[in-house]
C-alpha cells in the first residue's frame, strides 16, 4: 500500500517541486513584462515629444515621408507613427526578455536567435529609410536639373534613376536581412543586367528610329539654343 502511495505521490511531489522552482521565474517574467510595458510607454511619450519639438513632422512632409505613408494608407502623424514603431519594438524586446526569464531551454534558444537577428533587422530598417529619402532626393534633383536644361524626357530619366536606386536599396536591405543572399545577388544582377540589356536592345535594334529621333531632337534644339542665346541674366 505504501509503495502504491509512493508511486502516486512521487510524481505529484516532482510536479510540485518543479512548479515551486517555476513560480519565481513566472513572477520574474510578469514583473519584467509590467515594468517593460510601462517603460516602453514612457519612452514612447518622450520620443514623440522630442520629435514634435524638433519639427520632425514638417521635415517628413518635405522629404515625402508623409506622402509615402498616406500612399500606404497610414494616416497617423509621422512622429506618432515612429513613436508606435519604437513602442512595439520595445514590447517585442520586453516580451522576449520576459519569456527568457522562464528558463525553458527551447524558448531560450529562440530568444537568443531573435536577439542575434535584431541588429540586422535594425540596420535593414535604417538602410530602407535612408535609402528611400536619398532616392527621392536624387530623383527630384535630377528631375529639376533635366527640366531646367530643357530635356524632353526629364520625368522618365528621374523615374529611371529613382527606380535603379530603389532596386539597389532593396537588394541591400535583403542582403542585410540575409534573406537568401545568393538569390538576392543573382536577382539583383539579373534586374540590373536586364535593364541595361533592355535599353541596349530598345535603342540599338527595336527602337532605333525612336532613339534616332530623340537624339536628333535634343541635339538640334541644343545647337539652336547655343547659337542664338547670349542674354546676360545677372
Amino acid at each position, binding site marked *: 500500500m505504501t509503495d502504491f502511495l509512493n508511486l502516486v505521490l512521487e510524481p505529484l511531489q516532482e510536479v510540485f517541486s518543479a512548479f515551486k522552482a517555476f513560480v519565481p521565474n513566472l513572477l520574474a517574467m510578469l514583473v519584467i513584462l509590467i515594468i517593460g510595458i510601462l517603460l516602453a510607454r514612457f519612452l514612447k511619450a518622450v520620443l514623440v515629444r522630442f520629435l514634435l519639438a524638433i519639427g520632425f513632422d514638417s521635415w517628413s512632409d518635405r522629404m515625402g515621408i508623409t506622402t509615402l505613408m498616406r500612399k500606404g494608407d497610414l494616416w497617423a502623424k509621422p512622429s506618432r507613427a515612429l513613436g508606435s514603431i519604437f513602442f512595439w519594438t520595445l514590447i517585442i524586446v520586453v516580451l522576449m526578455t520576459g519569456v527568457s526569464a522562464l528558463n525553458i531551454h527551447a524558448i531560450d534558444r529562440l530568444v537568443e536567435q531573435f536577439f542575434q537577428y535584431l541588429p540586422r533587422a535594425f540596420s535593414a530598417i535604417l538602410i530602407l529609410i535612408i535609402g528611400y529619402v536619398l532616392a527621392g532626393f536624387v530623383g527630384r534633383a535630377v528631375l*529639376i536639373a533635366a527640366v*531646367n536644361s*530643357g530635356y524632353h524626357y526629364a520625368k522618365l530619366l528621374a523615374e529611371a534613376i529613382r527606380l535603379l536606386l530603389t532596386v539597389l536599396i532593396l537588394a541591400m536591405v535583403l542582403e542585410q536581412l540575409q534573406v537568401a543572399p545568393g538569390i538576392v545577388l543573382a536577382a539583383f544582377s539579373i534586374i540590373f543586367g536586364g535593364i541595361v540589356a533592355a535599353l541596349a536592345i530598345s535603342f540599338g535594334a527595336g527602337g532605333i528610329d525612336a532613339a534616332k529621333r530623340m537624339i536628333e531632337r535634343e541635339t538640334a534644339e541644343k545647337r*539652336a539654343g547655343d547659337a*542664338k*542665346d547670349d542674354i546676360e541674366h545677372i
Partner: protein
Amino acid sequence: MTTILERKEVREQIGNIRTTDILVGIPSYNNARTIGHVVRAVQAGLAKYFPDSKAVLVNSDGGSTDGTMDVVHKTAIEDYQAILLHHRIQPIHKIATPYMGLPGKGSAFRAVFELAEALDARACVVVDSDLRSITPEWIELLVKPVLEGGFDYVAPLYHRHKYDGTITNSIVYPLTRALYGRRVRQPIGGDFGFSGKLAAFYLSKDVWQTDVARFGVDIWMTTTALANAFKVTQSFLGAKIHDAKDPGADLSAMLYQVVGAAFDLMETYRDVWKPVRGSEPVASFGFEYTVGLEQVTVNVGRMINVFREGLKNLREIWLEVLGNGDFHEVERLGALGDREFRFPLALWTRVVYDYAIAYHKKKLPVQHLIKSITPLYLGKTASFIMEVESLGQHEAEAEIEKLCLEFENNKEYLVNNWK
C-alpha cells in the same frame, strides 16, 4: 577661420603700407585677358581724381592659372601724358594675393574687407575684372560720394541692354525695393563703393561659409547696407559691358545663389522689412547720358519650351509652392501660343512672394525649391522680351517700374502669409 592676414607676405605688405585713404579691390579668376584694362582704368582714375590720396590696389584672386596676378603686377600706365595726366604724387601700392575660403566672388570680397580694415581704409571700391567698359571716371563716381558726400555705400547705375540683367529686373530689384523701401536700381551690379566703416561691419558678419561667399555677395552687401541704415546712394557709370560670358555658367545655379541669398536675408531682416510700405528714391550721382549698347540675341522659343517642360514635370512642386489658385493661372499660360505668351505682372509678383514664403516655411530642400523657379523665371523673361521687343530703352524701363509697383502694392500678401 583662416584669413589672408595669416600670410606672411601679406602681413609684410600691410606693415610697409600701414594705412591708406582708398582701397580698390578687383576679384579675379583667370582674367589675364581683361584685367590689364581694369587695372589701367583704376590707376588712371586714382591719378586723375585722387592724386594726393594714398591708394592700394588689391587683386583678390581665386587661384588663376593664366597669369592673372602677373598681369596685375606688371600693368602700369607708362605714359601719363598720353591720357592728359601728370604723375601721381602718391604711389599706388599693389597687393595681388589668392583669397582663402570657399571659391567664389564673396570670398574674394572678404579678402578685400580684411585688407580694408587692416589698412584702415577710408573708402573702398570693388570692380569686376572682366569689364570692358570701365573708365577712370568710375573710380571718382564710386569713391567721391564716400570721401566727400559722407555716404557709406555707393551702388552702380548702368545703362544695360533692355534684355540684359533679367534676374535683377524681374526679381532682385523689385523685391529689394518693395522689402526695404529704397530704389537701388542695380542691387547686384557687382561694382560698388563703400566706406571703411561699412567694410568693417561686413567683416563682422559670419556668412563666409554660406552662398554669400559665392554669387550671393552682391545682394548681401546691398541689403546689409540698406537694412542697417547705412547711408546709401548710387552713381551713374555709363554702360556695363563684360568680356564674353562663360558659356558653362549655369542659370539655375546663379538663381539659386542670388535668390537664395535674398530669401535668406529676408529671414535675417524680417523685423526691418515687414513694416515698410512703398519706396523712395536714393540720391544719385553722375551725369546720365545715352550709350550705344551691343546687340543681344535671345532664343525666346527655347525659354518658353523650358517653361512648358516645367509645367509638365514640376507640377507637384509648383502646386505645393504656389497653391491651387496661382498654379492654375500658371497652367493657363502653358496653353498659350508662343507669340501670345504673356506672364501677368500680378501673377509673377505672387510667384516670387510664394517662393519666398515656401523658403521661409522650409517646404522643400532649399536647392530643389529655388532651382524649381528656373522654368517660371524663363517664362517671365520670355514674356518680358516679347513685350519690350518693339520698345525703346525708356519704355522698357517703364515696364520694369510697373512690375516694381506691383511688388509694392502686393506686399501685404507677403506679410500676411509670412507666419
